[in-house]
């Protein structure tokens, strides 16, 4: 018999295997090779986290206890993906357009980015998910116990609890390692999705294998199996119509509302078209998953001794036949179902808790411009990790309180009904512009209260939370408040009863509350964007012209998104505005875009608050918003043709205007360039001519003679240098340059540049991390060195710090290798950042510089020839330049 320890080792090895998959997927994604990670197949498989341990173990138990009713759990989602695909598509579209991070974020964002609603939905989701997570803990614990029993050491309650605690702790660790290693701006987790896709395959194979074994191995073929089914009590079960309708509704609604389903369905979705595949492939998966449930249940009932737990037939039936290997496979299937659900659910819930509760609290505790100081990312990551532990902790507590003995399906339905409370606010928000936050709050609160009272609290058992007396006669003897017979309806199935009343009260309150209150301007705006998401291609603007500095916004974004992501966004926007290499203008459109990007990391409400803190006095007035909303509505009424035509005309006019401006600018530039060259050449020549005349006159002291000859010499050198630079630039600009491509190492190259830059002993200090510089390069090494020398020499010349220091930072990413040169001086003011790469753009103070102001222009041309870029990097404190090495070189370096 398989030892229990071996099983633990197998589980750990399996976890390690999942890690490897996740890790490999993330590495591929980081390298940009993620096409297959974003395939419809992976998307569909990831949806299968709908099938948890409840489905894997519980469905068989469900069938053994209640006949075909287990099918409702598959029927609901099937109806939703096939019949309601347009709802799902709308959800996905809104999720992408608004950068929604969770179901709480969706509701909060829809109702005017309301913080309170975000908190409310988060609380509901956490409480509703608790029994569900307990269910997974229970099933994994029980499956361990089955193997422990087999070795003759039957587990008591103590061992079960210890095992559940160990499983919970393991899952906390697992989820933290998986889901919070980094903060993704899109809140997408390639690694996790890949791992759960793998788990989806394993659990399906496991269940199908057990099914095949049962049908052909034990029963002796399909015909005999059908005969067995006919003879079993399952076929004799009479089905309750109300339960069928109720459960189908609940499972379909839960498919949309469960935080983990929302995570895979909407947040992790990378392409709307994947829905088309999922709409047939996912029901197919569910069908195969449910195919062998009844045979396994029937054979299990026949084979196993009376009183054995039908939830565990999938394990105990193979074990009883001596097929340990199959049982272990089946165990891994169940383990997969449980772990994948817990990982995604806790990631989704921790995102909600952190974005809607912890971060807003932290922000309000740091009144003084919180986003400008402190590391928001660190706080967000920490709060997510703690939330993961908290959510699993709650699951464990529920497991202990509920005694761990309840049927899996019964626990699952409690969770489903709780999560479904979000449905009215979600659908109302999607399709009804008149819905308001007060309506949503009222519906959510009352629906949640009815659910808690009629289903959740009684689930702890009579007398555990609600005294038995109250359960039987109602609080204070008020009969119509009896938890399981509310409003005097007696004899209804408890689950159907809870679904019926909670949804009725919820939807009613939502409707009445919305009709009675008026939406705020922000709600109207968001409402229009949500309801008309397919018509709005551009989106409306929530920010009026702003007074914020681009640099402040960049600093804040860097704290949340990380430097590279934030800079990429700013550079893209700058390029779009035609200001490559500089900070973009703070247009309302850009602020809007930035807010959505930030919302991807910290949620809509928080992102709105943070931007609002920076853009003082720029938040929109009521009139502004109404005007915007009205404009948006009017635009819809224009015909597409008209719109396209006027856009076309605008484009042409703009192109003409741009061309004209460019021509004028060019001719002005040419004049200015000539007069600059003239100035730069004539100045040294003036000294040379004048002093040579003085020397020719003679009659002066030897010391003076020597001095003047020295000046002539120095000025002649300056003239030569200038001519060299001019020629260099002209050759580079005309593209006549031949590159001398060689292979070398970035470290050697920086070494060479540092020693060639002619640093004084008391001059600037160079700080490097040579371990990062081990990057092989294939490019024109001399030209690249020339660029580096220029940057180092500039830092030496212009850095004004008391103890000047230049940091050279090398970073490698999917996009290539970047080398940053960051000094600790005063930096370059925003106005000047726009001109430093232009010819002769030396910034004031002629004497000190000693160059003609061609250095950076040459650097720019060289980088362009090498296929890379050089740009000023704002927001780094001192002056900072980023050299991006050509991508081809980065690839060659792999």
């Amino acid at each position, binding site marked *: 018999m398989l030892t229990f320890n071996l099983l633990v080792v197998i589980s750990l090895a399996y976890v390690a295997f999942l890690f490897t998959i996740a890790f490999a997927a993330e590495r591929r994604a980081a390298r940009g090779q993620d096409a297959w990670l974003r395939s419809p197949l992976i998307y569909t498989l990831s949806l299968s986290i709908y099938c948890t341990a409840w489905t894997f173990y519980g469905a068989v138990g469900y069938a053994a206890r209640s006949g075909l009713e287990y099918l409702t759990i598959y029927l609901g989602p099937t109806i939703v993906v096939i019949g309601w695909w347009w709802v799902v598509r709308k959800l996905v579209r809104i999720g992408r357009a608004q950068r929604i991070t969770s179901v709480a974020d969706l509701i909060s964002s829809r109702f005017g980015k309301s913080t309170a609603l975000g908190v409310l939905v988060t609380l509901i989701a956490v409480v509703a998910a608790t029994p569900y997570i307990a269910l997974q803990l229970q099933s994994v614990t029980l499956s361990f116990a089955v193997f422990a029993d087999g070795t003759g050491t039957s587990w008591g309650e103590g061992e079960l609890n210890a095992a559940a605690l160990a499983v919970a702790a393991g899952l906390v660790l697992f989820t933290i390692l998986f889901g919070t290693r980094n903060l993704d701006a899109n809140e997408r987790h390639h690694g996790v999705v890949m791992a759960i896709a793998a788990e989806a395959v394993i659990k399906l194979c496991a269940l199908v294998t057990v099914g095949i074994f049962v049908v052909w191995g034990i029963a002796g073929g399909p015909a005999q199996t059908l005969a067995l089914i006919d003879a079993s009590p399952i076929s004799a079960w009479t089905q309750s119509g109300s339960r069928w309708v109720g459960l189908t509704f609940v499972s379909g609604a839960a498919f949309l509302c469960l935080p983990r389903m929302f995570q895979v369905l909407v947040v992790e979705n990378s392409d709307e078209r994947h829905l088309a595949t999922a709409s047939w492939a996912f029901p197919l998966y569910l069908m195969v998953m449910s195919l062998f449930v009844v045979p396994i249940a029937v054979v299990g009932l026949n084979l196993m001794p009376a009183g054995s737990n039908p939830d565990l037939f999938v394990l105990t039936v193979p074990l009883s036949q001596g097929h340990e290997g199959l049982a272990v496979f089946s165990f891994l299937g169940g383990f997969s179902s449980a772990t994948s659900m817990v990982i995604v659910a806790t990631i989704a819930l921790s995102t909600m808790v952190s974005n809607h509760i912890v971060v807003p609290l932290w922000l309000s505790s740091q009144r003084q411009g919180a986003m400008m100081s402190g590391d928001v990312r660190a706080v967000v990551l920490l709060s997510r990790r703690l939330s993961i532990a908290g959510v699993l902790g709650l699951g464990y507590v529920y497991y202990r309180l509920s005694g761990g003995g309840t049927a899996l399906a019964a626990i699952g339905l409690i969770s489903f009904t709780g999560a479904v409370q979000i449905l009215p606010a979600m659908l109302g928000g999607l399709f009804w512009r008149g819905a308001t936050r007060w309506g949503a709050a009222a519906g959510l609160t009352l629906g949640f209260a009815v659910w808690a009272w009629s289903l959740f609290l009684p689930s702890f058992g009579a007398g555990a939370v609600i005294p038995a007396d109250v359960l039987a006669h109602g609080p204070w003897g008020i009969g119509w408040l009896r938890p399981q017979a509310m409003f005097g309806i007696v004899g209804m199935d408890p689950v159907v009863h809870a679904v019926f009343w909670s949804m009725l009260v919820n939807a009613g309150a939502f409707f009445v509350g919305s009709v009675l209150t008026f939406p705020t301007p922000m709600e109207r705006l968001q409402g229009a964007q949500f309801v008309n998401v397919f018509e709005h291609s551009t989106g409306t603007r929530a920010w009026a012209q702003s007074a914020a500095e681009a640099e402040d916004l960049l600093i804040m974004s860097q704290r949340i998104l990380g430097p590279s992501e934030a800079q990429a966004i700013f550079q893209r926007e700058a390029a779009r505005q035609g200001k490559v290499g500089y900070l973009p203008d703070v247009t309302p459109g850009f602020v809007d875009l930035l807010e959505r990007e930030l919302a991807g990391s910290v949620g809509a409400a928080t992102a709105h608050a943070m931007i609002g803190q920076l853009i003082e006095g720029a938040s929109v007035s009521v009139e502004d918003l109404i005007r915007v909303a009205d404009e948006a509505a009017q635009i819809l009424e224009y015909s597409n043709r008209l719109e396209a035509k006027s856009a076309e005309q605008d484009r042409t006019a703009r192109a003409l205007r741009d061309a004209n401006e460019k021509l004028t600018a060019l001719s002005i530039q040419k004049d200015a360039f000539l007069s600059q060259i003239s100035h730069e050449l004539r*100045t040294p020549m003036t000294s040379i001519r004048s002093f040579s005349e003085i020397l020719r006159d003679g009659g002066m002291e030897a010391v003076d003679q020597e001095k003047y000859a020295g000046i002539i010499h120095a000025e002649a050198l300056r003239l030569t240098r200038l001519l060299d630079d001019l020629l260099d630039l002209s050759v580079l600009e005309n593209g006549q340059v031949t590159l001398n491509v060689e292979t070398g190492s970035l470290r050697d190259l920086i070494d060479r540049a540092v020693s060639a830059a002619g640093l004084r002993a008391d001059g600037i200090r160079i700080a490097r991390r040579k371990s990062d510089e081990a990057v092989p390069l294939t490019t024109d090494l001399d030209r690249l060195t020339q660029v580096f020398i220029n940057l180092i020499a500039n830092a030496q010349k212009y850095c004004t710090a008391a103890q000047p220091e230049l940091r050279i930072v090398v970073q490698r990413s999917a996009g290539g290798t970047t080398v940053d040169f960051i000094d600790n001086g005063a930096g370059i003011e925003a106005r000047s950042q726009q001109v430093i790469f232009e010819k002769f753009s030396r910034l004031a103070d002629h004497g000190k510089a000693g160059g003609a102001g061609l250095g950076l222009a040459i650097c720019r041309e060289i980088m362009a020839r090498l296929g890379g870029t050089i740009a000023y990097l704002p927001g780094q404190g001192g002056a900072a330049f980023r050299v991006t090495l050509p991508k081809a070189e980065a690839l060659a370096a792999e």
Partner: protein
Amino acid sequence: MGKRVLLIEDEPNIIEAISFILSRDGWTVHTHANGETANDRVRATPPDVVILDVMLPGKSGFDILRDLRADAATVQLPVLMLTARGQTRDRDEAMRLGANRFMTKPFSNAEVLEAVRALARPMTET
């Protein structure tokens, strides 16, 4: 004490050269390298002749000249303009603004000396 020349120029070597030529000829040479404060300097210690460069940090020689001519105290002050840009447009601009002489760099020493002497002369005669 000889006559005073104020040289408004920012290139150290050119300052040195012009100072040498004029001192040798018996002039007292003051120098000023900043465009922004040049007008204040002229007003504080009015020289007999001003030599004014066009490209200066802070304020261009043209703007300085315009302000000199707008001030009753300096409207007659002889000004020799120097420029390294050497375009006829600059010459026209300098003359329009009221420069007495205009010279393009590089100049010959004798030329400068002659110009400064000539500019100082009418003032001493009247």
